[in-house]
């Protein structure tokens, strides 16, 4: 599992990649972390868009963050605003939307903006992992 994949080493240990989950619900962050850690990912958390921007701008995350999973409906800086920021400042970091509200118009608009996937809660672990794996592939392509 710990084979060289994304090309980054974290704290001396190799992982499948570093994922940031942005959601105001601690429960969601907990299960996403649980699912992705089991699959060998290093998981960071942020409770809203504002915190997420702080996380991505801190230290090595600027370079080492591979995938962002982002909710839409959140306090302070919401998902839409946060995604716009990430697309502008970190266009190479793939984004996955994980939302409680299926909205076709919003999904279309976000996918046009370059969001890799639009997942509606509740999403199965396998589907989430597959989506993150696809995003990782895109991330690697971006580095070529």
């Amino acid at each position, binding site marked *: 599992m710990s084979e060289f994949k994304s090309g980054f080493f974290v704290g001396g240990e190799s992982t499948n990649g570093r994922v940031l989950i942005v959601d105001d619900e601690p429960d*969601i962050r907990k*299960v996403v972390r649980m699912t992705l850690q*089991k699959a060998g990912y290093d998981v960071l958390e942020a409770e809203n868009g504002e915190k997420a921007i702080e996380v991505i701008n801190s230290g090595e995350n600027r370079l080492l963050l591979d995938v962002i999973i982002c909710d839409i*409906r959140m*306090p302070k800086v919401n998902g839409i605003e946060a995604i716009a920021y990430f697309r502008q400042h970190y266009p190479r970091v793939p984004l996955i939307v994980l939302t409680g*509200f299926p909205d076709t118009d919003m999904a279309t608009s976000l996918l046009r903006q370059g969001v890799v996937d639009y997942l509606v*809660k*509740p999403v*199965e672990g396998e589907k989430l992992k597959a989506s993150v794996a696809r995003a990782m592939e895109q991330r690697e392509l971006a580095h070529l």
Partner: protein
Amino acid sequence: MDWMTSQGKGMAATSPTNAHPGIEIEQTPTPRPMRVAIVGAGRGGTALLDVLHQIGTIEIVGITDKDPLAPGLHRAREINVTIYDRVADLIKSPGLNLVMDVTGDPAMVPVLHELISADADIISGQAWRFLWTLVQHESTLQSELLHAEKLAGIGSFAAGIAHDMNNPLQLILGLAENLTDEKDLDAVHAQARDIIDAVKRTSAICRDLTSYSRRTSLRQDCLVHVNGKLDEALKIARYAVALQDIDVRKLYQPDVAVKGNPDELLHVFVNLITNAVQAMEHHGTLTLETSAEAGTTQVRVSDTGCGMAPEVQNRIFEPFFTTKPPGKGTGLGLYNIKNVIHRMNGSIGVASHIGRGSTFTLTFHDEYVADERTTQS
């Protein structure tokens, strides 16, 4: 027949005539209200009181019944309509335009014709039966309208409901998936407990909403604790509008209560809170305030939002008036609120400044005040 004819001293001296007839204080010309008397305070008289007293262009001069325990007399006390002991005193009130005879008593008709002045009319017999059908129809329509508007509003709850249901569902699914191969027994127990809690949270959403969306039963007035109702409304309004970035301030005086239909009052509060939050576009302070003193109970819902221009303020209680884009508002919210509050014998007012926000104030007069007044005379 004493009640019909004799001219004893009743409460006619306190009949609410305009203190300054002919002086027009308001700038916009309002037609002189039609002055109506109701004879008979049974079921029909009560229903008439309820309908007519909501109409600004009709003034109920008074009501009378030979039975001092007639239900309409009780209702008249609640809404401060003068009760006359004798028909003659009521019929001879100055400036009377119309007498509604709802007694169904054929002997009443000639008595009224004898007493009434030449420029006033009488509605009785078949004409009254016809009107009674219309009154009942109107009452059905109003409750239908309230329900329809409420159901239309629930459409806007979809995003909030989805958010609140799918988050615990995600937790349940994630934990259950993990449990399929979790070896640590302590972790299994802890996660099973988390699942139970999440299921309970999810079912609470359905409970809140089904109790809100049910049809309000008419005439189920009871003492409603206002602070608790406001809290309940806040919980439901969360589904319609994003409250995460709104600072909610509660300035509650303890134990404030009003008499009314609890379901209707909840609907009123949900609507006022939703409007307030929408006016703020997700940032600002929502203040819920209750107070009760000297027989007057007030509920205030304030926002620090966009505010309204005077020409908008003047029209917000009109049916179908809305500033929202097509499909976003029925224009019936405040109209229905006004009707509900009027039925509770209360009043609703608004103070608003562009760019500073709006405050809606509901005022209810304690019915004990009315009771005291009637027992004094």
